[in-house]
């Protein structure tokens, strides 16, 4: 298909979608309206279960099974990336060179590293109380480790980042989520029921299983992001493509 024809097909499809979408928009509940039946019920359920952060309650209690699916997608895509970005037979591995870093960059990155790590752990631990939780905090923790790459060099990052260990921890995070869900079965409730005592409202131990599931997700997301970035950084820094392709092309 020529690019001109392709644009015409796109214009026809886009115009159709646009017309239908605009018509649908005028039938939607008005923006900022007061009627949110699901929202009201979710807030009510979250307060009944002593979880101050309603979004966490929805994700890790009321819709905990959906979050299991979401977590499995995350896990699956980490596995997929590990498989896609592995070192192939025709590729060599160069040890990374030591790099020189400007002193101010080194100083501020090294100061920011422990602070970022602490913030990440705080966000994971307070997921049931304040905005945040395992997904957000996990990404912050993984970012903290990579400040070492900015502050020193790739070899320093590799020393604190045994990728195999993080891959195991990633799977362990996923398993922990399943185990918390299965523990509810032992008590006679349904899978992933919030079976623990709800605790005192607005304290760290409130929310029943919500903090536990948050911690499991935090471990999985932090380790998953570290593994993902490790694969991408390996491609950029260490793995050198072999010359088999060049020979093949020269031969044809």
């Amino acid at each position: 298909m020529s690019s001109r024809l392709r644009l015409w097909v796109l214009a026809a499809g886009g115009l159709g979608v646009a017309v239908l979408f605009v018509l649908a928009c005028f039938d939607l509940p008005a923006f900022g309206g007061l009627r949110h039946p699901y929202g009201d019920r979710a807030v009510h359920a979250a307060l009944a279960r002593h979880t101050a952060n309603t979004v966490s309650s929805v994700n890790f209690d009321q819709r905990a099974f959906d979050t299991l699916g979401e977590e499995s997608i995350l896990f699956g895509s980490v596995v997929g990336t590990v498989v896609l970005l592995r070192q192939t037979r025709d590729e060599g591995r160069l040890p990374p060179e030591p790099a020189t870093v400007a002193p101010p960059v080194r100083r501020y990155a090294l100061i920011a590293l422990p602070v970022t790590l602490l913030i990440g752990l705080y966000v994971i631990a307070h997921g049931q109380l304040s905005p945040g939780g395992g997904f957000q905090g996990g990404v912050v923790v993984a970012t903290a480790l990579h400040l070492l790459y900015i502050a020193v060099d790739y070899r320093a990052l590799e020393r604190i980042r045994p990728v195999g260990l993080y891959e195991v921890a990633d799977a362990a995070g996923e398993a922990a989520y399943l185990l918390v869900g299965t523990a509810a079965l032992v008590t006679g409730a349904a899978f992933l029921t919030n079976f623990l005592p709800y605790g005192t409202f607005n304290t760290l131990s409130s929310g029943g299983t919500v903090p536990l599931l948050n911690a499991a997700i935090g471990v999985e997301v932090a380790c998953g992001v570290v593994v993902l970035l490790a694969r991408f950084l390996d491609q950029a820094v260490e793995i050198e493509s072999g010359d088999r392709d060049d020979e093949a092309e020269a031969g044809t």
Partner: protein
Amino acid sequence: MSVLPYLIAGWLFLIGCYGLATSRNLIHAVGCLAVCQSSTYVLLLAIGYRDGGTAPVFSDIAPGSRPVVDPVVQALTLTDIVIGATVTALLLSLVIQVAKRHRTVDPDELSELRG
């Protein structure tokens, strides 16, 4: 204009589709897909908004003292963002392999099969 936020979501989706269809670079195409996906965030959050509403977090406000926005769509948006990030990572790793095997990231040049 009470439908403006919804229309912005639709515009984001269409502009992302336009970018996908006319893209000459796979990395640019992955970025366009992210734009398409961000339209769903805008749509979800616009549907959940309540006039004068604040975040549905009750650690610093008393329950019932202020209107809060819909937490269900916020949780859905969080799910959406996580899936978007992982799918982007997976697609970018595919782009890396395509670039290695075919020495190009232009989708129009990727017509031939190679073993």
